[in-house]
């Protein structure tokens, strides 16, 4: 595989994390325009861990994911009283606030005679873990997909368990869920935290893949895309947002030849898709029908 293909595939993998993060919140009925903040904050935290404090990569990813999860839970607790549009606006405001803070943060430490650390608007250079360890792009891509597979497996296990039903209960009818004895507040904070962790893993990987992060990358467009992945691919299963990412990135790469028009074509396509499939390609009903087909086949075989 040439480097271009590997880079595109790695980008698809890393973006998938933020797609899954937004998806988890969509399941619980919340539309967050702020998941890019956790992606970005984790990229900075993980970059700082490995580049400034010489931690190993796994510790960097852990630091980034935990930081993102904890901040997400704090923000979640503060915005708990808000629902629907108000929640969306609050998440957007928080994400922009986080981005603007990263624009002015300058903390640098000396590592091997060189200054390393976030440099405000100039971004955070020198996250060179990959070069220092002589890790190839292919190897890093495998790391990305390994962690992505792990995340997807976790989400699928959650969905098969009662916890998955609990999340869907929250998303479907808050009051009804509460009336079934569900502590909606607790599970909402839990979901927000888990979504932060998932976005955080992606952000930590991103920082080490590009060796350089800047606040500008974590703007609201990333958050909008993150939502679009789930809404295009479908909210019936964790594979939905992955399909969404593949369609989004793959389609945009495939129609590069029409240059400036491609975003227009793409926007139109998304609009049409959402009109005819409001909960995405793999929505609950299609997933349900697919499952029925599979279980019938298994019965026939048995």
């Amino acid at each position: 595989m040439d480097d271009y293909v590997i880079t595109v595939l790695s980008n698809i993998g890393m973006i998938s994390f933020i797609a899954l993060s937004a998806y988890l919140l969509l399941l619980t009925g919340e539309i967050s325009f702020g998941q890019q903040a956790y992606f970005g904050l984790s990229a900075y935290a993980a970059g700082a861990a490995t580049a400034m404090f010489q931690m190993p990569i796994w510790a960097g990813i852990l630091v980034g994911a935990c930081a993102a999860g904890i901040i997400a839970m704090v923000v979640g607790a503060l915005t708990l009283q808000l629902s629907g549009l108000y929640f969306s606006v609050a998440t957007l405001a928080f994400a922009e606030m986080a981005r603007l803070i990263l624009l002015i943060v300058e903390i640098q430490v000396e590592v091997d005679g060189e200054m390393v650390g976030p440099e405000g608007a100039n971004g955070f250079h020198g996250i060179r873990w990959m070069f220092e360890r002589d890790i190839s792009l292919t190897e890093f891509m495998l790391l990305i997909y390994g962690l992505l597979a792990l995340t997807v497996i976790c989400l699928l296990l959650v969905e098969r368990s009662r916890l998955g039903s609990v999340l869907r209960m929250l998303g479907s009818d808050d009051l009804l869920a509460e009336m079934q004895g569900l502590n909606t507040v607790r599970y909402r904070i839990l979901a927000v935290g888990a979504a932060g962790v998932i976005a955080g893993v992606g952000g930590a990987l991103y920082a080490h893949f590009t060796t350089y992060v800047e606040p500008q990358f974590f703007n609201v467009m990333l958050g909008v895309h993150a939502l679009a992945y789930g809404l295009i691919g479908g909210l019936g299963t964790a594979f939905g947002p992955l399909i969404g990412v593949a369609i989004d990135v793959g389609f945009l790469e495939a129609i590069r030849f029409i240059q400036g028009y491609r975003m227009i074509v793409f926007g139109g396509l998304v609009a049409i898709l959402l009109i005819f499939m409001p909960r995405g390609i793999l929505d609950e009903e299609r997933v349900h029908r697919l499952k029925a087909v599979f279980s019938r086949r298994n019965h026939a075989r048995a």
Partner: protein
Amino acid sequence: MLALKKVEKRFGALAALDRIDLEVAAGEVLGLIGPNGSGKTTLLNTVTGVYPPSGGRISFQGADITGWRGHRIARLGIARTFQNIRLFPAMTVFQNVWASQHSRVSGGLLGLLRSRPTRRCADTRRVDEILELFGLLKDREVLAKNLPLPARRRLEVARALTTDPPLVFLDEPAGGMTPAETEDMARLIHEVVAPNRTCVVIEHKMALIAGVCTRICVLDFGRKIAEGLPGDVLADAKVREAYLGRDDAPDA
């Protein structure tokens, strides 16, 4: 079992519940009737913690539950259905009942993660038993939104029973049903819901009320205007005036 003392609920200047005193005794089937807007559903919402009362005390099995949040009240053992049928539409019939059992699962988050709807586990069997009782087992894998109305009403009642609550509120369980379907629902309430538990039924259909209730309480303009045995209450002059004195089409 359930006791309301001077319970008030005001929405702005409107007193939806005006100092209601009400006792529900263990084992009875209490019919809660009254014209539209008389405060029946508000009373149910106040007791189940949808919103806190503006005044007064509510106690259940000796515990003061005034102002508690809904999930705690539900866990204590008060289940309910909804007048305008609330189901999880994108879940199957089975999942609707199964998911609502989660408060029976111990072990916190890990317990929830470990709990799966496998054929062998006791919870699954319990759900299937309840579905069978309500004639829903054949629709087990149908999405709730694709069910016809009488089946959706039955599913709501079935779901309310899944945690074995000592007290169940049914909010117009026969709303929108034909006489034959209403009769079927009355039979289910009498044979399945009422035994072994206390039941409060809000209903407009007198056939159902007279058929299943052991006692009746009448609300009008947020006040309790009568209470007693079905025969006496339905013959009461004030009750007849409240019902017949103005247009009162059942809001089915």
